[in-house]
């Protein structure tokens, strides 16, 4: 049984002009110890999917239909208190900006100790020893002294390490990492990615890695879900998605990324822009920008179907 199953998840926002559907029947699963990359451009619904899983959808957003199951048990319909216990204990979260995740008024030691003691009974001295251990594991130098420092006393890269320690210290089964390296410089980004990969491998943790950076995904993920306009366009093993994309959107996305290896005269571009929530095209949501669209694409919405080694929501593979 997969650790996480997301089944036809639909998220809607109520507005004065009716409800807007931001996620439309999104389904995927994550196995134990697996890293699933979720990519897509802004507004594709990547972060919203993560927020829905941990029950942090902001009003007026709500889960309109579908199920989210962790270890076979539904977590999408839990009351706030049990959900809060799952969040942190079973599911850890890492967000883009480490400054907004950490409380600036508490030392990082206090935040780590409080997190661990919320989710497991342990003495203060035990918790403190463990906290120092976590800081060492994420590579904070002189952890035993630095544990009493405040977030502002750390650099950006170190803060993100502390956030990772905070997400992992309760030893959750699943970590949702939303753009964990986007705010960091590339040399520091490489350190953080390696750290995240090593730690999750050592602890058998599953990760949902949300990012717009395909390079990060290529290096980190086992499988990839490509999202477009609130739906999954394609999902499959990372090497297949990158080398043999089946969906024209994935194909265009890969070709539009400038390469370090060779220089081309013109980058392939996807013309047009992502449609707005209140003006979704009929049929396949990508058809107005799709170079291979035909009559069926404008009329009927494709569901995920087998397409070589991946699954793609595209009538080319029907």
């Amino acid at each position, binding site marked *: 049984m997969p650790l996480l199953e997301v089944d036809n998840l639909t998220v809607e926002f109520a507005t004065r002009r009716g409800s807007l559907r931001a996620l439309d029947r999104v389904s995927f699963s994550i196995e134990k110890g697996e890293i699933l990359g979720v990519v897509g451009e802004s507004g594709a619904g990547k972060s919203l999917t993560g927020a829905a899983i941990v029950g942090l959808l902001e009003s007026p957003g709500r889960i309109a239909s579908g199920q989210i199951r962790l270890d076979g048990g539904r977590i999408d319909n839990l009351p706030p208190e049990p959900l809060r216990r799952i969040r942190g204990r079973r599911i850890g979260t890492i967000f883009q900006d480490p400054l907004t995740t950490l409380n600036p008024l508490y030392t990082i030691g206090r935040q780590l100790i409080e997190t661990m003691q919320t989710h497991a009974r342990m003495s203060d001295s035990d918790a403190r020893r463990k906290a120092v251990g976590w800081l060492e594991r994420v590579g904070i130098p002189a952890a035993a002294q630095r544990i009493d420092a405040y977030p502002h006393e750390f650099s950006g890269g170190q803060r993100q390490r502390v956030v990772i320690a905070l997400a992992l210290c309760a030893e959750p089964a699943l970590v949702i990492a939303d753009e964990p390296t986007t705010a960091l410089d590339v040399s520091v980004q490489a350190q953080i990615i390696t750290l995240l990969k090593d730690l999750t491998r050592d602890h058998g943790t599953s990760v949902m890695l949300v990012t717009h950076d395909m390079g990060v995904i*290529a290096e980190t993920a086992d499988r990839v879900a490509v999202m477009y306009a609130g739906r999954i366009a394609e999902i499959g093993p990372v090497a297949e998605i990158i080398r043999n994309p089946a969906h024209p959107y994935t194909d265009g996305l890969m070709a539009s990324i400038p390469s370090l290896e060779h220089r081309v005269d013109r980058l392939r571009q996807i013309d047009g822009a992502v449609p707005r929530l209140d003006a979704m095209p009929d049929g396949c949501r990508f058809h107005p920008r799709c170079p291979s669209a035909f009559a069926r694409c404008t009329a009927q919405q494709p569901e995920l179907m087998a397409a070589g080694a991946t699954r793609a929501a595209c009538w080319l593979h029907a």
Partner: protein
Amino acid sequence: MSQPHRHTMEAVAVSHRFDVSRPWLQRLFNGEPKRFLRAVDDVSFAIPTGTTFALVGESGCGKSTIARLAVGLYEPSDGDILFEDQPLSSARAQPALRRRMNMIFQDPYASLNPRWRVSDIVAEPIRAFRLATRPNEVQARVGSLLAQVGLTLRDGEKYPHEFSGGQRQRISIARALASEPDFLVCDEPTSALDVSVQAQILNLMRDLQQRLGLTYLFISHNLAVVRHMADRLGVMYLGRIVEQGPAETIFRTPRHPYTRLLLDAIPDLEQIGRSRTPVGGEIPSPIAPPPGCAFHPRCKLANDRCRTEKPAHIAVGDVQVACHAVAEGRDS
């Protein structure tokens, strides 16, 4: 017609310091001296007319400060910036020269006035420099500028908020082109955009360069984007250019340890599932940079000389490198 210039823009030993001292009274009480941040330290480069010179580096390396120096938004503390062989300050005093340089900014959400219609935003430089005065003339110019960046005159009736990020960056480019410049400083022009839109803007910028013979100073932290755009390249670390030369040469055989680190740190699509041993450390504070070579605390090749003596630029083929290890042949 004036003589054609070999270099559109040149920086000669330019430095720029910011005063980051605490208020006078506090300094007086604590007996502190003034403190300066050396954002740009002894930087020299020249941009051949009609080509793209790119500056790359991580945050705090001084690349945006150079962008601002290059169009005269800051005055250099030391050294000179030349525009077509004239000092920038005197070039900017002449409207005929001033209109020939312009800037494209990173954030297309912050750089357009939300209360103005797009056609007024694009028409402003035309009116300011009196390139056209009669309303229908101005209108015609705005129409052709919008067409050049892939928009229509009807888009000109709208306000910036009605456009997506990529379209707004097109508007910024149309406005930058309105004064008929030869030299554009582009500070992270695609960093706020999604990759599919980034490709549209980069293609557009290269088309315009070919069609109009533009010279670009292109600033970015994204090496893959730089590789796509640059003819010549400068790699910056803590205010200095540590390596510069033809972009192809540097990408093929990076010399400076920092350039190698940068190229190696980028996650690449072609290396699926790569495991690596990342370089430790972070960029030190530019207020108190390390002595000697600023990169030595993170450099595997550093020795005592690197810790005490600032390396000068040496020529290796057509590339300039500031590294003792390269100079002494310790780098292989």
